[in-house]
């Protein structure tokens, strides 16, 4: 009985953590946008703009094409739910971790969202949808092995596949060759997985450049708000994961998150989006770094 009580408390804490991250997530995206604007000598919109956007979309009608079925309506919700549940799994933030899974479960829970979004892209019977889905699974095919290697590299260092066991100790300065290489490589994966420049451009709706935005082109109203919010949460989650698992310096978590956020903005300002078929080379670079890190430990 006590065990059950304990599990329940853990659950409440974890879901509370997920909720907190969900509320912060648009702010992080806002900060990235503001930084980019500053680097480009623009004033830019307010850092709270993303909240206004979500609020706006929330009240707008949802336009459904007559060809769509239940998948089209369900997919954004599943994407949102699975991202939220994945956020609840992040370790050592506010709460103890609930024991429904380790890092592989974390990775594959996000695959649920990806599966549903990619499938739903074909539901509205447009050319753009299929294009987005096709490119999404192409990028994913190259991201996944690199993620596996980054997990392997971390596990060799920490000795656990449990997310709370994988975090670096608070006072740990892991400036070994392997540590630094893994850190850089995971940052590259972070950009690719969250559809940022140089892999994808989150701001354009030009059919030749877009990947993630292409999949969501047919969505409107609440469903679009859910997708955007989940994407923002996913970015924050990856930044937090990066800070907890791979950032090799001994500084407070909030500072790590802010540094990573600004780093995303810097990379986005200094680079162009690369050609779609160069993405594999970009990710192969990350993979080679990780392979070195795995062998070097």
């Amino acid at each position, binding site marked *: 009985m006590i065990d059950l009580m304990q599990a329940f408390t853990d659950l409440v804490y974890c879901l509370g953590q997920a909720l907190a991250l969900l509320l912060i997530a648009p702010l992080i995206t806002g900060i990235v946008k503001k930084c980019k604007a500053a680097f480009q000598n623009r004033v830019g919109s307010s850092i709270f703009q993303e909240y206004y956007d979500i609020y706006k979309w929330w009240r707008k009608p949802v336009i459904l094409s007559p060809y769509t079925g239940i998948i089209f309506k369900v997919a954004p919700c599943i994407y949102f739910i699975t991202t939220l549940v994945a956020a609840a799994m992040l370790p050592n933030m506010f709460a103890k971790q609930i024991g429904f899974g380790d890092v592989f479960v974390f990775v594959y829970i996000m695959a649920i969202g990806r599966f549903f979004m990619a499938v739903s892209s074909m539901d509205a019977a447009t050319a753009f949808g*299929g294009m987005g889905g096709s490119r999404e699974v192409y990028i994913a095919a190259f991201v996944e092995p690199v993620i596996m290697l980054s997990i392997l590299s971390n596990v060799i260092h920490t000795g656990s596949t449990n997310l709370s066991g994988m975090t670096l100790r608070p006072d740990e300065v892991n400036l070994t060759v392997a540590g630094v290489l893994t850190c850089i490589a995971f940052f590259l994966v972070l950009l690719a997985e969250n559809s940022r420049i140089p892999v994808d451009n989150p701001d354009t709706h030009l059919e030749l450049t877009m990947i993630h935005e292409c999949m969501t082109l047919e969505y409107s109203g609440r469903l679009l708000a859910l997708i955007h919010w989940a994407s923002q949460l996913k970015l924050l989650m990856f930044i937090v994961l990066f800070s907890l698992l791979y950032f090799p310096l001994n500084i407070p978590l909030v500072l790590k998150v802010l540094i990573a956020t600004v780093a995303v903005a810097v990379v986005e300002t200094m680079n162009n989006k690369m050609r779609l078929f160069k993405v594999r080379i970009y990710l192969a670079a990350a993979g080679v770094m990780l392979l070195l890190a795995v062998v070097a430990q």
Partner: protein
Amino acid sequence: MELFLYAACCYLVGVSTFFFPRIYQVEAHYLSNTAALIGSALVTIATGGYYAGSLATDSLKWGTYSLAIDGWSSFFLLLTGIASMITSLYALGYGRSYEGNRLRNLGSNWNLFIVSMVFVLLAGDGFSFLLFWEIMAVASFMLVNHEAYIRTTWNAAYQYLVMTSLGTTFLMIAFLIVGAYSDSYSFVDMAHNSLTPQMAQWVFVTAFLGFALKAGLVPLHIWLPQAHPAAPSHVSALMSGVMLKIALYGFGRFMFSFIPTWSYWWAAVVMLAGAFSAFLGVLYAQMESDIKRVLAYSSVENMGVIFAAFGCGMLLKVTAGGHWYLIAMAAALLHAFNHSIMKVLMFMSAGSIMHGTGSKNLELFGGLARRMPVTAVCTFIGSLALAAIPLTCGFNGEWLALQGFITLARSSSAHDIRLLTAIAMILLGFTGALALGCFVRYFGIAFLGRERSEIAAHAHESDKFMLSAMSISSVLVMAAGIYPMPLMDLVAQAIGANTRMFTANQAMWWGTSAYSPILLLVVLAIVGGVVYLFASTAKYEVKEVTWNCGTDPTARQQYSAIGFSKPVRRAFDYILQPVRQRSYIRKDHAYFGRQLEYKLELPDMISRKLYQPVQKYFVVSSAFLRRLQQGSVRLYVGYVMAAMTVVLIWGAVIK
């Protein structure tokens, strides 16, 4: 043990329906499939009885021939029983489409196929094993060749026959070597053999080649994507779901009992062969437009994952020792069971699509979810499982396999182990993501969007037998995914591990890592309920035709199946080497009024680079040998005399 013999009687009744008069072919069909259903139910019950009983090795003997059941074979018997029960139920409906088309052959061969698989698993000595193994091969050959009037089917069937005979040759050598070193062919005596390490190596090589060929590992897989699409759907379901697993059974039998001291390089070979098969299999699966070939290549992939996990276990035992290797063996077995039920489901739903539309070309489908809702739901569940999505059974085996690889990486700090693990994990990472893409494409193109052709627009749902068989296996796929604990116990028993080794507190457990599907389901349900309450779109929905830049959208504007896999095809074109061709059908003017035709061929790389040169060499050398065969009797008498002279001289010299 007696129950298995009753089951065999049921199957033999099914086989005998071949002798029904032609006017009673429908009755023969129902009788044979019901017999198969009852027989398979008996096999399942008998295996259950074995588990409920003392778990002692049970056997029957007739002279040197014997039947036996033990922990390792009982797991596969259970798998066979369940899968053939479901597919026989399906066959009751699906077989009707072969009315007037040798329906009685289909029914009797079907029974022969199942009974041979059951008895391969029950065989207690080398001779009966090989005997039933060959009956299995011949029965499945006849089933693949059912529509022999189609040229491609005929080719596929004969290619399968040649390949499987080759495999049996290797197996015979393996059995003969082990038999020679133990003076008996009974499995019990063969386990106490006196093989030297040198000869054990040869046993490994021949056994691995023989079983890998049946399991469809690259580069011995080429028969598989030909034979599976050619066979009727319920046959491909059973071939893919069960027959490939029997190869794993045989391989495990050799590895665990006959040559239990493994070398490092055996383990590395098995693991890498598995990982490469997984990668290449799924790569080709994503390229195919024939729904059954997609599934066939996906079987190559999954058998690859199973053998990679098995090899990882072997490597763990060689390098780390102790009981660590059991985790990877458990992964291989669990995935074998799970793949069996999900592939049975997917082949049955592919059969349902073919039944409803009359085609198996993905490019012609679209919007089938509106006309075949039950098939759509079942295919969706199967797609999720094959994409290894959590909460379906496909993920559990994958999770255990990944734990096995992590354990291997941590077991030693030697660079070669690290590198091997890293390569295997890279390949499995590719496999996981490409499988996801493959089944997004499979489901999305076939069931969503708009109809790409007339046949999709007039598709119809299948009958009750087929739908109930598909629903049952969908439920099984989900149940095995959400509550894998009983299955894990069976797996642990099969490999001789402690039943509590992989499970604790209703979760899968290894070291400090846990995966609890039930808890995950609960959390997803809670969060999902809250999101549903807040984000319900009911009051906000507006129906409007898809915006298409001001023009009317047409079905042809959707991405095609070939188009969907284009980025991946291009990224891997150094492996796939697609042959593209663009030609003009009409070209009135250089810039407009042109009509183009694109052709894309994706011949299997292994078949083109490895088999075709060998085949060419055989054709050339047999043309040379033909000169010896002049057809004249005097010449042959001359050959006989020449041979005798040589033998006589040789005999004299040796003496």
